[in-house]
């Protein structure tokens, strides 16, 4: 079994996010990190590998993004991936969800994985639709927000919560699965794994290397035009209490609730 994990570099959650108003694109400067949701996808791959139900030959981390995205791949490798592939090309800048999914599908086609895993959503563009796009291009069955995944030869048994409760779905491999964060507790990488991550093979490819048609990606190849960024209607800022003396804090909460007749 060969598993590919799609990962993404996102702004660190602690850093304020901003859009460049002149280009309409995310300002990608500042602190970056591996998308926290992706660590669950890598952990899921490692648990399949270590679970012994099926033989896993390789776990490969795949990303698309600028040169800095290499750090996300190093992190993915430190968490257990055997090697990584970095799709980077100036022609990809400004790609929408469909163009991005198409480009990633072309990289994956070259690897021909039995299982593609990804995190349920990325922390920046909130594009938790990418799995469904990639699956359609690869012509593979797909399911998102999976919180339990049992692997048997040739088949997966997945559980996920949908509109009416929990669904159990059986899926034939190869398949594209996006996992929810309840699926596992990701491990912390060992110091040795962090130090060794840069030595694992990293394959840098451009669009020509994987047969991506240039007119189907980037701003020109995208079918959505995003613009007119505006601030949402402002809600009056709420009151904030830093709890130093809990008795005092509780008194303030009681007064606040009482004023609004919520303790009647």
């Amino acid at each position: 079994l060969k598993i590919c994990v799609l990962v993404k570099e996102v702004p660190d959650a602690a850093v304020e996010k901003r859009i460049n108003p002149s280009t309409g694109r995310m300002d990608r400067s500042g602190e970056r990190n591996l998308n926290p949701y992706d660590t669950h996808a890598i952990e899921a791959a490692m648990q399949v590998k270590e679970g012994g139900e099926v033989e896993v030959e390789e776990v490969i981390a795949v990303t698309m993004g600028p040169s800095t995205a290499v750090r996300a791949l190093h992190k993915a490798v430190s968490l257990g991936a055997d090697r990584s592939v970095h799709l980077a090309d100036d022609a990809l800048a400004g790609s929408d969800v469909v163009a991005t999914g198409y480009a990633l599908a072309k990289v994956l086609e070259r690897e021909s994985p039995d299982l593609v895993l990804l995190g349920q959503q990325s922390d920046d563009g909130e594009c938790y639709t990418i799995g469904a796009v990639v699956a359609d291009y690869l012509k593979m069955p797909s399911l998102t927000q999976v919180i339990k995944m049992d692997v048997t030869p040739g088949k997966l048994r997945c559980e996920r919560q949908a509109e009416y409760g929990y669904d159990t779905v059986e899926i034939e491999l190869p398949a594209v699965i996006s996992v929810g964060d309840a699926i596992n507790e990701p491990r912390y990488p060992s110091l040795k794994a962090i130090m060794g991550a840069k030595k694992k093979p990293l394959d840098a490819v451009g669009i020509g290397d994987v047969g991506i048609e240039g007119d189907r990606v980037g701003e020109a190849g995208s079918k959505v035009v995003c613009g007119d960024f505006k601030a949402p209607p402002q809600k009056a800022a709420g009151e904030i209490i830093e709890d130093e003396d809990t008795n005092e804090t509780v008194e303030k909460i009681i007064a606040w609730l009482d004023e609004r007749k919520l303790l009647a």
Partner: protein
Amino acid sequence: MSGILAYALHYEGAFNKNSLGGVSEAARLAGELGCEAHAVVIGDVSDDLAATLGNYGVTKVFRAKDAPEGLAQPVVDVMAKVMDDNGHDYALFGGGLLGFEIGAGLAARLNAGVTMEVTQVNVADGKLTAERPIHGDSSISTSSYKDRGIIIGRLNAFETAVPSDASAQVEDVDVELSEFSTKATMVQRGEARGEDIDIEGADILVAGGRGLGKPEGFELCEALAAALGGAVAATRAVVDAGWYPYSTQIGQTGKTVSPKLYLAAGISGAIQHKVGFQSSENIVAINKDSNAPIFEYSDLGIVGDLNKILPKLTEAVKAKKG
């Protein structure tokens, strides 16, 4: 012929509330554009039930009887064929997990533009544009489409129209499913998990999230809810983890509530949760992380340890109420 096609999810003989919102929105927009809005239904839907979608303004309902309902990819096959055969320019989905999956797959299939988490759709120069809050709702971006457009609403974004007595024409469509669409099969659908608790009528809700630390943390919420005369709600993360029943879950794929007081304990306030309670009259948040997004939209925020605050607050509420 142009037009808008809306997907109507159904379960146990009733249409999904968010789907009816999407159908209503499609009809409203079609009126502005001067075209027709249609709906698509999958699987076992009676003629009578399908025709009731006309109450919300669509003139025609395409029904794919033999396709399985509950999984996205067969619906992509059906919608792609219906849109190609009938020349729809737009597909529209109310909020919901399946809508996200179907809409994204459909965009890939049709090489169309897609926008998700849409809160408002407008008509400009005879075309649709979609507004979508981004980056933790700190900014709103507007999407327009070079060709066909797929618009996926945020939960509760589209209002359901007041039903008329109009009826829609029902047309059966025969669609051959893609081979890969048949490789996933539903083994069990809609398992409730946990006891059935009614929280939708409660005026006061005390909600717990992952910040409670452990399942037993909910005892603190239960004690406070009992003192306040309210009920206990939960986030998806803790329901998925098995800490609390699915019937108490607020947000995407859970319930939508608007109580007089929503007190959130140990909840960071991700968008998927926020959409389920943001219309509450008063929102109080207790969280030890001062960066938690919930503090950006709570009316009263307390940065502190809920394990210290909740028990004392419960005692104080009891004392106050006598």
